[in-house]
């Protein structure tokens, strides 16, 4: 499946004008805070309506300003993991995950539930409420909840940024594992150079609401394209390995 996005959204002092195409790969949208990365995800998810453009997923049109088509988030079948795990505090881990199984019948829901808790190693945590869980555990539950109904694509809005380096590194491994089981477009928003470099099949660099670079991580983060990335990349790498 492919996801084609071309959106414009204007706010008083900011214009998002982005175009991207994502296949069954992990694309990282990389850029500084306020460059429009999360806004792009919000438009893809149907949480924000763009002013103009087109969003097409496979053979479904999610948004087309000319044809006046706008599907709500509920009609798009997507997985979205936010920066904070945003677990429902009144539900247990199991209830949180099951809540994501919209449209599945009881048997499928249970089967899918067992699959995701196995995949994310959550068996021991089923009955715990979010307040009793660590940051990494909460984020694993958020992933399981987003994936239980087999969404058509997965949007990750800086899901690891609030985690400490060790847990973040574990979560990266999880994400790599998941990608072996699910072949869907994954878009990860981050401003961490090392995260982008180590996870992406392809990197799209944003600046002031526009795509300024796009390509394989090695190309995008090369000294010629982004000389400013070399040093941060080295620092990030050293931090992740515990050298600093």
């Amino acid at each position, binding site marked *: 499946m492919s996801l084609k996005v071309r959106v414009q959204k204007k706010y008083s002092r900011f214009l998002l004008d982005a175009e991207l195409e994502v296949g069954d790969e992990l694309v990282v949208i990389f850029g500084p805070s306020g460059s429009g990365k999360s806004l792009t995800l919000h438009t893809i*998810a149907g949480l924000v309506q763009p002013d103009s453009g087109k969003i097409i997923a496979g053979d479904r049109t999610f948004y087309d300003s000319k044809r006046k088509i706008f599907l709500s*988030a*509920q009609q798009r079948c997507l997985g*979205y993991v936010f920066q904070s795990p945003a677990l429902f505090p*009144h539900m247990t881990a199991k209830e949180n995950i099951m809540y994501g199984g919209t449209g599945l019948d009881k048997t499928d829901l249970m089967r899918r539930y067992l699959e995701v808790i196995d995949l994310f190693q959550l068996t021991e945590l089923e009955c715990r409420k979010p307040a009793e869980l660590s940051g990494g555990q909460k984020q694993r539950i958020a992933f399981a909840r987003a994936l239980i*109904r087999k969404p058509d694509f997965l949007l990750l809005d800086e899901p690891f940024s609030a985690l400490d380096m060790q847990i973040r590194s574990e979560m990266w491994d999880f994400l790599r594992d998941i990608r072996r089981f699910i072949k869907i477009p994954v878009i990860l928003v981050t401003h961490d150079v090392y995260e982008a470099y180590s996870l992406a099949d392809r990197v799209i660099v944003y600046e002031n609401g526009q795509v300024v670079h796009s390509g394989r991580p090695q190309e995008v983060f090369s000294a010629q394209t982004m000389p400013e990335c070399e040093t941060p990349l080295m620092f990030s790498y050293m931090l992740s390995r515990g050298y600093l």
Partner: protein
Amino acid sequence: MDSSVLFSICLSIKVAAIATFFVILVGIGIAYLLAMKNFKGKVLLDIVCTLPLVLPPSVTGYYLIMLFGRNGLLGKQVYAWTGWSIMFSWQAAVLASFVVALPLMIRTTRAALETVDRELIKVSYTLGRSEIETFFRICLPLAKRGIYAGAVLSFARAMGEFGATIMVAGNIPGRTDTMPIAIYSCAGSGDWQKAHIMVALFTIISALFLLMANRFSRASV
């Protein structure tokens, strides 16, 4: 206990319970609109729903007469269709209690709904859940303590309603004399013994309800 005292207590509880039931239904709906939606006329709706809180009850009662009286805007139509008027019936006491208690429910529930993390609502939508489902499964459970507190306060306010009630329901012994009205009659006619009993009972009941509301409010923080 004097049968008229017992009648007044039962009538007050019946009126307050029915009014609170409708206050909860309508109040949660309006509070949701005010807390979550942006629409034309939102400020006007907010003001209209809050007015009974600041207006003298006699003014609220006056508006109710203008609306529901036999010659009122709506009351005239109802009387023409059914030959029945709500005025000077126990249902009128319910209506008056509903109107004066509604702002309390709306304000408490709105405050509780506004504390629900918007990101949780967005998550629910991205998981394919409709707005109604999100409301019942996410917003309501997370705001429930505030809603309970609002319901208890509304019940207490409905129990104590006097001014608007006496204007639309009157003071008909054995028919519309709720406790506050019966206390007023007893004090007026010098029946102090009966007044003492009812005042004591009323104070105890009201204090108990305030205690409950406080508990809910504290637990919701």
